[in-house]
């Protein structure tokens, strides 16, 4: 078991509750590996948003609070204000991060609150049945865009690029994808190190949602490839390594 499951996962709550093929499981696996590698299991407090994210409320054997939709960022900001030595990770989807909770994320970045925000972008509101989200691409058919998302509702919300514009110079802002797990794990690690250095970090991870995309395994990867073309991966703000911090 140890070889396939991160030590920081809670064995008693497995198998996890995400759908087969869901990108969340991949992100969680690598977040677990990073927590193990950095030996921070006892130092992390995890905040979990509403949406499919909430299915991970008891996935880790780390202190976890599942909050309201879009409210994980301000909850973790408040937590970190009085627990300066803890590592606060806010985990959410693109709806929680970029629609209902955007205001809080922008201001956390602007104030440079030392937390790590992980946004899993699967281009839809998955828990409620796949409605269009700010990141849904033009043409995407969803219950709220039955004839394909019109460009008049936005052509795909590029949040890390936007937040990089307002974030502190020492913040870490990046985008990865589940098809590049080595890069994703490296970004998660940098995002945690950035927080440890006293700065705001936010990473978006592109992920597939076969259930709501109504795609086979092969089609899921094809659609993710289109998504990766729309949302470029990389570091928009590189932060500072811990050693350079005060």
């Amino acid at each position, binding site marked *: 078991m140890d070889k396939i499951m991160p030590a920081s996962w809670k064995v008693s709550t497995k198998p996890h509750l995400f759908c087969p093929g869901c990108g969340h499981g991949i992100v969680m696996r690598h977040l677990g590996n990073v927590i193990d590698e950095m030996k921070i299991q006892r130092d992390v407090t995890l905040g979990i948003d509403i949406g499919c994210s*909430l299915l991970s409320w008891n996935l880790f054997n780390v*202190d976890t*609070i599942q909050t309201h939709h879009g409210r994980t960022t301000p909850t973790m900001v408040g937590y970190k204000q009085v627990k300066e030595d803890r590592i606060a990770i806010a985990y959410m989807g693109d709806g929680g991060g970029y629609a209902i909770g955007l205001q809080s994320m922008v201001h956390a970045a602007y104030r440079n609150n030392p937390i790590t925000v992980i946004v899993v972008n699967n281009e839809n509101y998955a828990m409620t049945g796949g409605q269009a989200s700010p990141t849904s691409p033009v043409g995407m058919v969803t219950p709220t865009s039955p004839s394909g998302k019109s460009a008049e509702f936005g052509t795909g919300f590029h949040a890390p690029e936007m937040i990089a514009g307002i974030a502190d110079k020492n913040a870490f802002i990046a985008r990865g994808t589940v098809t590049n797990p080595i890069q994703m794990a490296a970004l998660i690690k940098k995002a945690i190190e950035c927080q440890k250095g006293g700065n705001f970090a936010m990473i978006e991870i592109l992920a597939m949602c076969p259930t709501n995309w109504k795609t086979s395994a092969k089609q899921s990867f094809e659609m993710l490839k289109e998504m990766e073309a729309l949302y470029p991966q990389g570091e928009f703000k590189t932060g500072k390594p811990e050693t350079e911090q005060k």
Partner: protein
Amino acid sequence: MTEAKELLTGNEAIVRGCVDAGAKIMFGYPITPSCEILNGWILQADASKGKTKYLQTEDEIAAGFGVLGAVLAGEKSFTASAGPGHILMQDPMAMAENLRLPFVGIMMQRGGPSTGTVNFSQQEVNLAAFGGNGDGMRIVYSASTVAEIYELVIKAFDTAWKYRFPTTVLGDGYLGKMKTTVTLKKPLNPVKSTPILKELKDSTNLRNCYSTEESLGEVLAKNISDWNIARYKIAESESYKTADAKTLIIAHGLVASAAKGAVDMMRKDKKKVGIFRPITLHPFDTRALISALDGVKKVVIVESSLNQLSRLVKYELAGMKLDISEVAKPAQGFTPEEIINRLEEING
């Protein structure tokens, strides 16, 4: 220990109450008539050399969830707001109600609905007690003087941390901004806060989302059971000159102060009038009210909202044969003279 007399506004007394209760951090967004609480807290925090902290947030929702984050970390935390801000606070307050988090909010009522006025009302009683998508496992205090709001703020932290229900102290714009001479009595043993996310080897994993009716039902049954035990310990009231009263005024907050003045004036004319003043609007001190009603012929409920207090009272007294009149003046205040006039009209 002797306490000195001081000249303070209600909002200044609130800040002092939060400090003396051991609050560590305030999260807030400016809104009239509560601004001086945020301003005053920040002033003392800056002078505290890191002993107390603050965060001016992007909105009241973030302020409320900031409070929840801080209490999860084990520190006494609070926010202050009013009217439209109090509406936005319902989001975090609902989470606090589900997860039994010791949220403390000080709400300085202003006229509503909507932006209304910034002055005064008693229209946030329903919101404070029942504003969430639940059944109102919430503690609501209503202060009627500057000295009392100091004491109730301290009590709110104690009650919230002891019983773990979200707790609101209601004031209003006049109470917040009036300046008066007070003697503040410092608390001797404030209830201690403890971490809720415990940082143990076996993690604490908390959720407010359940997948079956039964699993949520179990949580609610526990909360309701705890509430039904705690409510009698929490409920508080003042009965003033009620022993021989034939007419009983029921009023809370600043209106009760005016009504008390009216009672004193009417007593000089040998009128047998008394007042029952709920200090907690929720839970309601029903036992004390029933004993205050002994010998009463006429009940007059006076308030600056359209019967929000009256509905609470009538629910508690259901089945009792009482002659009740309602004097409702939403978002407007009362003078003692006006209350006397209204009582004379009612009594004929």
